């Protein structure tokens, strides 16, 4: 068979709501050759996921397929009788979604569920044969000890491992096409990079075609030979991925590419600046006791934050990066003094917070404000906007008239329309909601804003606008910011100094240009190598990308906690847990065998 395996022609999907219909997929045509990987990019809301579901005829009201054909292996999926459709869906066409944790029944062992699926679409396969097949695939997607994990339920897996399970689920029936809808979106960078590398390896050995959907062109560029660009339901550009990335023809594609932040090319890193210390964190520790499963009263100690020290100076942007489970969130709670450290000291403006009386602590709290990630959950839904912004002032004892005046000033400053003052937050966009949160912090005239993934729920345009707002506020009020984020591009653009966390510790702390251009710690290099970029990555993946996932914080490796995944680990790493060593230029790294800066290496040669 030499023709296309999937040929879509003039496919349209309508959204019917309140008697009106809106076209969300508009006259889409494309073809997919056997074994090909075709990328599909477009912003959120461009209709990618609807298209993906329409291809397997899995759209339901209010969505409706209005016109078109989806010819798969010679049959039009859209006009097949239900029985014939079920012979294709899940069997010849696999589907992987963006929510691995929610894709299987949370109660039942994953192995059992995949076997159930396989036997559902291939009634001829026996139980034992199906089981062997699933075990074999679990091993091929490199899930450690597949025999044991076969019997575990989804909640016992991490997001990355669960996505591997879903890949097995899609591939188990030997499909000739797999639709991968945004599969790396919820994952950490290194895990996402592993998944892409895995799919790339698998499809070469399986000869399966992939439709790889993502909102990020750099992600698609890592795997797809050809790419479709989608805007408002239409395919606006189609071609070889490299060609599209280098020479986009359509203005939409150009805009899409221009919004991808550059990491190395033509970047001027914000230079570290001097100033008085606003926030001082000294050797802070925090652990939690978690009852051991299946025991009466045995507890495990989870060391969430271990021996963290840094200083944030006035007018400085300090970044904290790391992957899920590295202790970022716990550290945020400590910095905002929502929890107190078990050991060490956090001082604000030179005053140790643990020594303050309740009254002066409340007074002090005005000066450091926390902005959260979820713009929907962080606002009271039944309160008018202005009242919401006045509230912090009222709590701190400001009079009503004064509070109203300052709230209005703050609304103007963050760019909220005064007409919104008496409205409820219903129907506001995520960006507008975060502006409300910023205004709520702003009215108290703080010195430090702690931004816990504050921008990660926003799209690129809203993000850029808010970053401008942050810069403007910093210029007028002299704020310091702590950016806690997993988004390296954001940190690259905004932060003067950056700390990289791994398993509760800071493994490297350096100024922006050192960290991105000449990092010393192997973990920092691995993080950078995992970043999807259109430009050449300075840290090529084959050399720097990590395998596996971080060990459990309950059961830390002896010695250096990164050693179990470190490409440079040697014998002494097992014995010594390297302290955060001061390097030239006020930078720090915790590694016994760190990468040297080039001039240092040269200096050694000269001597």
């Amino acid at each position, binding site marked *: 068979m030499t023709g296309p395996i999937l040929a879509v022609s003039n496919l349209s999907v309508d959204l019917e709501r309140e008697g009106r219909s809106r076209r969300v997929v508009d006259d889409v045509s494309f073809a997919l050759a056997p074994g090909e990987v075709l990328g599909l990019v477009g912003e959120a809301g461009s209709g990618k996921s609807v298209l993906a*579901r329409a291809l*397997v005829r*899995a759209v339901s009201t209010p969505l409706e397929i209005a016109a078109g054909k989806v010819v798969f292996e010679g049959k039009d999926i859209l006009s097949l009788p239900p029985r014939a459709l*079920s012979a294709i*869906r*899940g*069997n010849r066409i696999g*589907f992987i*979604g963006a*929510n691995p944790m*929610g*894709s*299987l*029944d*949370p*109660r*039942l062992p994953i192995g059992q569920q995949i076997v*159930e*699926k396989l036997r*559902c*679409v291939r009634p001829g396969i026996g139980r034992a044969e199906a089981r062997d097949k699933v075990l074999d695939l679990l091993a091929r997607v490199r899930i450690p000890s597949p025999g044991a994990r076969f019997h575990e*339920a989804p*909640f016992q897996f991490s997001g990355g491992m669960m996505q591997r399970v879903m890949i097995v*689920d899609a591939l188990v*029936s030997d499909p000739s096409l797999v639709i991968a809808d945004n599969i790396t979106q919820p994952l950490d960078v290194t895990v996402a990079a592993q998944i892409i590398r895995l799919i790339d390896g698998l499809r070469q050995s399986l000869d399966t075609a992939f439709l790889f959907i993502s909102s990020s062109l750099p992600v698609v560029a890592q795997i797809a030979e050809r790419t479709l660009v989608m805007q408002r339901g239409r395919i606006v550009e189609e071609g070889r991925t490299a060609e599209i990335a280098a020479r986009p023809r359509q203005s939409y594609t150009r805009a899409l590419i221009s919004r991808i932040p550059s990491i190395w090319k033509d970047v001027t890193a914000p230079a570290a600046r001097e100033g008085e210390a606003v926030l001082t964190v000294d050797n802070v520790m925090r652990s939690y006791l978690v*009852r051991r*499963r*299946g*025991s*009466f009263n045995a507890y495990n100690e989870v060391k969430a934050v271990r021996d963290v020290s840094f200083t944030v100076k006035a007018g400085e942007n300090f970044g904290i990066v790391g992957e899920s489970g590295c202790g970022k969130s716990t550290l945020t709670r400590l910095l905002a003094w929502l929890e107190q450290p078990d050991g060490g000291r956090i001082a604000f403006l030179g005053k140790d917070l643990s020594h303050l009386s309740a009254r002066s602590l409340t007074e002090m709290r005005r000066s450091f404000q926390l902005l959260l990630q979820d713009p929907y959950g962080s606002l009271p839904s039944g309160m008018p906007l202005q009242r919401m912004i006045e509230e912090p002032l009222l709590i701190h004892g400001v009079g009503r008239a004064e509070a109203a005046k300052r709230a209005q000033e703050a609304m103007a400053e963050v760019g909220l329309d005064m007409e919104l003052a008496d409205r409820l937050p219903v129907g506001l966009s995520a960006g507008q909601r975060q502006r409300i949160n910023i205004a709520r912090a702003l009215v108290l005239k703080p010195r430090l804003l702690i931004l816990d993934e504050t921008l990660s729920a926003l799209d690129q345009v809203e993000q850029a606008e808010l970053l401008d707002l942050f810069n403007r506020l910093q210029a007028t009020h002299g704020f310091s910011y702590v950016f806690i984020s997993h988004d390296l591009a954001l940190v690259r653009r905004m932060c003067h100094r950056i700390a990289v966390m791994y398993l509760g510790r800071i493994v490297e702390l350096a100024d922006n240009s050192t960290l991105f251009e000449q990092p010393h710690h192997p973990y920092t290099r691995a993080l950078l190598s995992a970043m999807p970029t259109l430009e050449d990555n300075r840290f090529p993946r084959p050399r720097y990308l990590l395998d596996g996932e971080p060990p459990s914080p309950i059961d830390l490796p002896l010695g250096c906690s990164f050693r179990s995944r470190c490409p440079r680990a040697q014998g002494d790493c097992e014995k010594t847990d390297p302290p955060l060593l001061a390097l030239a230029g006020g930078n720090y790294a915790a590694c016994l065998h760190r990468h040297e800066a080039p001039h240092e290496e040269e200096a050694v040669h000269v001597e």
Partner: protein
Amino acid sequence: MFVLSFLLRRLLQGALIILLVTFIIFTLLRVVPGDPARLIVGGMAPDEVVVMKAKELGLDRPIPVQFVSYLGDLVTGDLGTSFVRPKSGASLGGSSFDDATREERAKVLDLILATLPMTLQLAAVALALALLVAVPLGTLGGLYPGRWPDKLALAIGSICVSTPNFWLGIVLTLFLSVKLKLLPAIGYRGFSYTILPAIVLAVEIVPFILRTLTVSVAQVMREDFIQLAPIRGLSRSRTIFSHALGNSAIPLINLLGVQLGMLLGGVLVIEFIFDYPGLGLLTINAVLQRDFPLIQGIAIFISVMFVMINVLVDLIAMTIDPRLEY
């Protein structure tokens, strides 16, 4: 191993709860007005006899002392003896103090154990009837939200919840036993006497089950793994029976635990109306006669049942959903 440690923890917690309940009941009963010694010997007895009776029963000691000695008996399984009930079962509360026909008084535990099977039978039949109606209807309602099964479930639930049980009991008796002579209504002389009160009780429980099940099925049906199931190739019936129902069962099981506890302890009105010789009727009579040991015994017994049922419910829920192992 896990189950053992779970049981140990929960039973210890349960013991603490029962101890608290015991203390509260014991204290409350002793501070309310009404002298049991006077009640036992009868209104005509001279004061000395009352004092003597109080001494004999230990009622003249301070309340904390009484409580400790009661607890001591309790751990040996002795719930005490009824103040007023003789072993034969008849009540002698009002009879004369020197009546020669008075027999030895009945053990509280025996009284409870004698009536418990009746109440268990009533509760089981009521629960079975309720489940029979509410599970299919509630599931359908959840599968088709906003369509006719959902509306039907809502209508039936509303009607049931707004029907007063004593009224329904009387009306059913009037039609089914007096007019149509289909079922017996008053007293107990065979299994058929259970059916009418069970229907009335079922009507009381049905709306709770309906509501819980409709909501939880509808919620589970919106989950990603159910939405994805047809794309993964699972048939609709398979999705519903092996995934949707299992996941919606947890709230229902928790509800049933509470309902069963209520059925065992709280069907006072129904048993009274139908003169059904169960735990409820025993409770009412004990209260009317100020039979302290009996009231205490029943209260403690019911709280033990409550604790046991809840442990059992949690165990079942854990088997259905291993995430609940904490």
